[in-house]
């Protein structure tokens, strides 16, 4: 239908009980763009990301990812996305390496070089330790490794800079730039004004349940 857009929202509404959080979003996002999503706490950034990741259903309106409806074609959407959760989304009783094997089984793909991947995100020493011994920054780094391994066309990142140290934030920026070169579309909910703006093609603001563009097209 409209496969030319990486993300397409049409009058998208989502509420919790009686409280409407997203009050009608309309968006067309071209593939290959890196977009920062700003908004105060509770503005609905995570709600929007979870909706695109097929974890929440819209109350009304539509959300399409590469032309696939998040409700009707959830499976097709999930094949094309990779997510980074605020707290890393890892299991406390598995090791880093086991997570990469688990993901490979879930995504029906070969494991690839897990060691090299974990070295890239700086987890070589901890790769066989249980995640429950990790700091929050290390969990985020594991999340980055899983993101890379997924080889997806759309990245949905929830506060990717949070909890990472300075080097980790540099690493994240590098990974996002690399993804952009490969044509990956990135949508990241963030509070890191400077880093995110430097990184992204455009900035969006979620305010009072509506979406608006913060500035005209910025040079990458």
């Amino acid at each position, binding site marked *: 239908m409209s496969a030319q857009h990486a993300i397409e929202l049409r009058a998208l509404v989502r509420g919790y009980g009686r409280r409407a959080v997203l009050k009608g979003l309309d968006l067309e996002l071209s593939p290959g763009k890196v977009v920062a999503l700003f908004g105060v706490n509770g503005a609905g950034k995570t709600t929007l990301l979870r909706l695109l990741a097929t974890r929440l*259903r819209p109350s009304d309106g539509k959300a399409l990812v590469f032309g696939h409806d998040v409700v009707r074609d959830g499976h097709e959407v999930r094949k094309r996305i990779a997510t980074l959760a605020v707290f890393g989304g890892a299991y406390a009783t598995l090791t880093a390496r086991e997570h990469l094997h688990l993901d490979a089984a879930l995504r029906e793909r070969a494991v690839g070089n897990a060691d090299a991947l974990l070295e890239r995100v700086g987890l070589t020493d901890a790769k066989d330790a249980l995640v429950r011994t990790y700091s929050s920054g290390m969990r985020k780094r594991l999340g980055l490794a899983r993101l890379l391994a997924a080889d997806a066309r759309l990245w949905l990142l929830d506060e990717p800079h949070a909890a990472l140290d300075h080097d980790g934030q540099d690493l994240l920026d590098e990974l996002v730039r690399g993804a952009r070169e490969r044509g990956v579309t990135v949508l990241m909910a963030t509070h890191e004004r400077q880093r995110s703006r430097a990184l992204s093609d455009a900035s969006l603001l979620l305010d009072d349940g509506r979406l608006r563009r913060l500035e005209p097209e910025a040079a990458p």
Partner: protein
Amino acid sequence: MMDASERLRRPAYLRIWGALLVPLFLAAAYLGLVWSPQDVNQGNLIRIMYAHVSVAWIGFVAVGFTALFGALFLWRGKRRDDVLAAASGEMALLYSSLTIIGGMTYSRPTLNTFWTWDAKLTLTALMVALLVGYFIVRALVDDPVRRGRVSAVVAIVVAASLPFNYLAAEWFRTLHPSRSIALDGSGVTMAPEMLFTLLFTTVVAGLIYAWFMVDRARLGHIEAQLEAERAKRELGAAPSAGGVVRV
């Protein structure tokens, strides 16, 4: 928006149907209490059976419809189906509670105890527990769509359990042969008047169930409409004030 009193008015077919239920109910009571002959073994006690068995049967049917409307809601996502499922569930809870009361009324004079581990009575007690679980789940989910979907899943699992619960309760009893008499009179040849009375009371119990369910669903639907209108108002006048954001 429709005028409130206009909206709340019961449609004509429901008013006629409701008005017909009164004479039908009286006729059923007459048939059961006066017209039907006494039973050879149980005497006048057989008259309890007309109310008890018909209500029990319709109670089971009501659980089946709750699951059916739930499945429809999962399939089509129409709010009306969820409202009907909930309305049918409420009637199922009412009818199965009445079945338990009826069963106790029947057990007291025949078996000299209020409770027997009769298969059907045990099954009905389980059904009440299952339906209470259904309504607890409904009360715990705030989002209307998610409430409908989760409770539909519960209703389907509950309906599927009834045959197993029945079998287990039936076999459980045969291992402990009690003096309880099969309440539906199976194996006993009934006088034609008795059979007719039983069928008549069952049809009337079914019509009463259906009337209350449809009327309750009507109110539930109005409730849902008001909720949707309130949500729309909260969104403000223009649904997409800023137009499409393009990146």
